[in-house]
């Protein structure tokens, strides 16, 4: 019987009825949700040390189905199977490196989030630093050239003579202007 149907039947007209209706409603909802949630979580491996190592290894490995997820966080079926494999090998006493090698043998370097340093991956590992060095070199050369261009140049004696004359002329003009304004104001006062 649906909760809504119950409320209709009770014909709510008082606070008491309303309370009863809510209690019934909650009970109905409660039984629904518990029945749908009644599924136990999968048991973890008994050994916590094994589980910690599993997480540690699986975080460094890529899930091949959802490639942007690590093996430890992926919910893909294959990831689950591979985790089971890793777990089995940990229990057998294999080292981290042996377990990673086991997966690389089957799925290639692609499973490693931290690829091995070897001639094929040199560009990957050192490329960015090489680019940075080249960029720094270019920058240094550019700055050096620019500094050479804008160096302060001394005036030749001719040039400084010309400048002196120009300044002198400007001073004379200013004096003339001041004199003119002074005579003009005097005239106005008189």
């Amino acid at each position, binding site marked *: 019987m649906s909760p809504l149907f119950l409320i209709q039947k009770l014909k709510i007209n008082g606070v008491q009825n309303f309370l009863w209706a809510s209690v019934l409603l909650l009970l109905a909802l409660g039984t629904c949700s518990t029945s749908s949630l009644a599924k136990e979580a999968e048991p973890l491996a008994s050994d916590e040390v094994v589980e910690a190592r599993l997480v540690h290894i699986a975080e460094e490995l890529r899930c*091949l*189905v959802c490639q942007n997820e690590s093996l430890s966080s992926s919910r893909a*079926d*294959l990831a689950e*199977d591979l985790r089971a494999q890793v777990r089995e090998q940990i229990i057998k006493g294999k080292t981290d490196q042996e377990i990673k090698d086991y997966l*690389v043998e*089957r*799925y*290639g370097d*692609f499973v490693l989030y931290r690829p091995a340093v070897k001639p094929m991956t040199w560009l990957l590992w050192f490329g960015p630093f090489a680019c940075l060095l080249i960029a720094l070199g270019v920058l240094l050369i550019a700055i050096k050239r620019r500094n050479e261009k804008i160096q302060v140049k001394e005036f030749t004696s001719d040039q400084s003579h010309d400048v002196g004359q120009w300044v002198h002329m400007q001073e004379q003009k200013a004096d003339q202007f001041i004199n003119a304004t002074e005579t003009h104001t005097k005239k106005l006062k008189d």
Partner: protein
Amino acid sequence: MKKFLIPLVLFGVLVLFLAVGLKRDPHEIPSPLINKAAPDFSLQTLTGTAPFSPQDLKGKVWMLNVWATWCVSCREEHPVLVAFSKQIGVPIVGLSYKEIQPQDDPEKKLSPEALLKLARSRGSVWLERHGNPYTLSVMDLDGRVGIDYGVYGVPETYIIDKNGVIRYKQIGPVTPQTLSETIIPIIKGLENS
């Protein structure tokens, strides 16, 4: 050389790299097993005949095709394989990969025998309906052999040479185009060697 051309050329190179990158499928991971010995196994067959091992086909060029009835792309690939099996005489071994999925037996009540029986009946019905290209099919219920072969997406197809070495891996469905352009030439080359 004119100076403004330098960034232009660099930009061109960058675009070229990105354009090539766009056309590559990130799901096709090159297999490290190419040119290595095919991992050995011994598995029950679909029909219940004696267990099959790759050793049984030493001296022959053969194909291993990973399939499952729940796999959608396998259905797409299947008619191509059926036609191919009639056309060329190489043995095609089917690897029925994890036929029983976790949701088929959520409470893990079924015994290993019951699981094998269910998987066999499902596989047989499917092959009856869609045609059977396989010389025989083996049952990889827990996917362990699949892991040894580096299977990460069904369907996958391997070509194995007379010495038991993997020579080619096809990820995803086999199409008439890949058959005629890649798979058949490889098989012919291996058979003549």
